[in-house]
């Protein structure tokens, strides 16, 4: 490339109402370099990216792309000037093929173009080959694995050969093998002269790629340097405080219902069309026990929980306190005390925190409702402070706390927690982890937790199951997990 294509941001500020989401941010990415922008949830890193791309309009500050001031421009003009963004959530056009999805990104922003330029087709194929989609050009997105959908997003973002490429959580949801392939692709893009900004939760995930890292916390720049420097930085360490694994398992024999456990899943299989999502899964949970089901994305955790909650047809048997659950509707199962806190959170985003909780406590008498609410506010003090705020405006961690709290409002006998750590920064995990510990110590509640984050799943667990490719492959005490399953597992 002739000139050093680069991105330069200074004094960037954005307020949402009274909340300062981004405050006086500055960053700079040269052509052929990768900058990592990290920060826990709610730190404003995604907002910075949106401000650069013109999706949000900055309140103050400058954004220069290749020397041109673009702050305040609409996003399509910024895109045309030379910025591409890889969105974390892919939403391809489902009725079009992969090739057509890539072609879309190559089309001119003109109303007069009624027939595609024949060169577009050739160009789209070249791009597809570059990102490794050449084998699936004529497939429809719905039939592709997640990693390929991410590749479509990359292909679209680089289609116009942008000077600046913004990538939001590049490796979210990818397996380690896919992550490696994706890293290679990003390096190749860097080598061909793009200036790349990677946005992610922590340094570790982008360690191998970045030339420099900037850390953000509550809207502000807190550290900058090489990955090593940032990881050693005192402020960063404080923000990202991580705990070592200490297990506190209670032996299985200490639970009184040894003969007939509270929940018993026996030889359960579930199919989605041709795909087997669960295969002969058996597990049990005693009353008062805390059981973790550990497994990667796609192992079948959510399917298992949805099956227990009565949302999916299955073969095999599920018993609660000895009685068969089959035939009961999902609503009945929930009302009788098996309550799920779903992975996607599924909050009512336009309703306030308080209203969300009130909905959870709908069936409680008024007095019981108030008592339960007071107890929950003690468990999650931040929710008390935010109770009149719309749920959608909470940070990811706060939303997760609200989801758990809403499930607890139903006074569950068995609380099923599906991936509570999904997309959350370590400091938030710590808070949720503490709340779970208090829950375990101060109540009789039974918990079934599904997690891919082992450091989160093990400390509270009395027993652990490992779910892998639709099957339970290991069961045991958390203390033995490291030795028997190997740390390399995840």
């Amino acid at each position, binding site marked *: 490339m002739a000139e050093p294509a680069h991105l330069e941001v200074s004094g960037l500020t954005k307020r949402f109402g009274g909340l300062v989401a981004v405050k006086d941010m500055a960053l700079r990415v040269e052509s052929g370099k990768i900058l990592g922008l990290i920060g826990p949830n709610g730190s404003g890193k995604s907002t910075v990216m949106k401000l650069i*791309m013109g*999706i949000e309009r900055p309140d103050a500050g400058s954004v220069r792309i290749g020397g041109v001031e673009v702050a305040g421009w609409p996003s*399509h003009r910024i*895109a045309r000037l030379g910025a591409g963004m890889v*969105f974390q959530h892919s939403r391809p056009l489902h009725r079009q093929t992969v090739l*057509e999805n890539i072609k879309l990104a190559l089309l001119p922003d003109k109303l007069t173009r*009624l027939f595609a330029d024949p060169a577009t087709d050739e160009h789209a194929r070249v791009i597809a080959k570059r990102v490794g989609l050449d084998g699936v050009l004529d497939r429809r997105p719905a039939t592709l694995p997640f990693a390929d959908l991410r590749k479509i997003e990359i292909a679209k973002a680089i289609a116009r050969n942008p000077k600046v490429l913004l990538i939001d959580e590049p490796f979210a949801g990818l397996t380690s093998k896919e992550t490696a392939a994706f890293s290679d692709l990003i390096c190749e893009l860097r080598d061909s002269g793009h200036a790349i900004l990677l946005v992610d939760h922590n340094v570790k995930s982008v360690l191998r790629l970045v030339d420099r890292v900037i850390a953000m916390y509550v809207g502000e720049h807190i550290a900058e340097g090489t990955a090593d420097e940032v990881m050693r930085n005192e402020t960063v360490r404080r923000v990202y405080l991580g705990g070592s694994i200490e297990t506190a398992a209670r032996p299985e024999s200490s639970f009184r219902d040894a003969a007939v456990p509270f929940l018993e899943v026996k030889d359960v299989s579930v199919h989605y069309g041709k795909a087997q999502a669960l295969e002969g899964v058996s597990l049990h949970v005693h009353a008062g026990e805390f059981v973790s089901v550990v497994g990667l994305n796609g192992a079948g955790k959510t399917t298992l929980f949805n099956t227990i909650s009565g949302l999916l047809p299955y073969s095999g048997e599920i018993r609660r306190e000895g009685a068969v659950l089959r035939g009961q509707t999902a609503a009945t199962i929930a009302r009788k005390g098996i309550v799920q806190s779903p992975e996607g959170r599924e909050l009512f985003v336009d309703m306030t925190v308080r209203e969300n909780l009130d909905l959870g406590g709908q069936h409680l008498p008024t007095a019981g409702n108030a008592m339960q609410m007071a107890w929950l506010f003690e468990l999650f003090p931040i929710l008390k402070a935010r109770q009149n705020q719309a749920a959608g405006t909470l940070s990811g961690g706060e939303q997760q706390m609200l989801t758990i709290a809403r499930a607890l409002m139903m006074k569950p006998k068995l609380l099923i927690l599906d991936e509570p750590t999904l997309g959350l920064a370590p400091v938030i995990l710590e808070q949720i982890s503490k709340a779970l510990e208090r829950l375990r110590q101060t109540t009789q509640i039974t918990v079934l937790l599904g997690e891919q984050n082992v450091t989160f799943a093990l400390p509270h667990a009395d027993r652990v199951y490992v779910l892998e490719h639709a099957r339970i492959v290991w069961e045991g005490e958390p203390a033995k997990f490291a030795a028997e399953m190997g740390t390399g597992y995840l």
Partner: protein
Amino acid sequence: MRFSSAMRTLLVLLIVVVVASFLPLGVSGYVLGLLTIACYFGVFAMAWDLLFGFAGEVNFGPTFLIGTGAYTAGILDNLYQPPIWICVVAGTVAAVVGGVVLALPALRVRGPYFGLTTLVAVLMLQNYVVVDASLTGGEIGLTVPDVITISDAKNYEIALWFMAISAAILFSLSRSPVGLILQASGQDAVQAGALGFNVTKHKLFAFIISAFFSGLAGALMVFYLGSASVGTFVDITVGVQIIIAAVLGGRRTILGGVLGAVFIIAMAEALRPIGDLANFVVFAMALVVVLLFPSGFFGLLTRAKEGG
């Protein structure tokens, strides 16, 4: 591959239309009259699908555009009796202008508010027609002095070929690069913007095209019926019937709108003996189809083809 499938669809359309153009040889004038209405209705539904199925905007006010076209053409003819084609052109232009005036502010608001804006526009037009009775004929309706022709067969042929040409244009547009960008804008405006597309410009374009065909069809229909009334061109119920026709036919298919329109008109006719219940039954059937086959008639057809 897509190109050839689009060509194939257009070829099938042509064959169907050519066959349909021989109907006057064996069908009564009454049936031809129904089919004429169905053709115009089909254009209304297709124009609506371009907005909803592709640009992703629910326009609850198709009759605002249709009514503006129809009444402008009708009133002009009533006042000055220029050649009919001038009235039709004026009606179309008025619908497009009305569409732009409505869409510019409406596209600034998101989601359900766009639909609400268009709904209010219909109510305003309806009110205006009723209030300014000396010009518009008010609740009684407007009788125009001219019609294109009094021959049922000729009226039918005009409507049929107008529908066919509109279908070909709208369908080709939906399969063109612009259609692709529209679909992307409708599905995820933020991402479409980040890909370098001016979303507002494209949606406005879709609205203008929709207004053009709605207004043109409305104006032509006035000179077939020889009259304009709120109940035929403006009322919310008419708008809902158009929407039902489009959805029954199949969202995002454009051509499905014609099937839906023919179905609605045919059912209303077939059920005429049961009187006022007819509408109820048609709406109930529409509800069943929407609930059980959300991809509509056209979706069922293409699925059967792909399956076999």
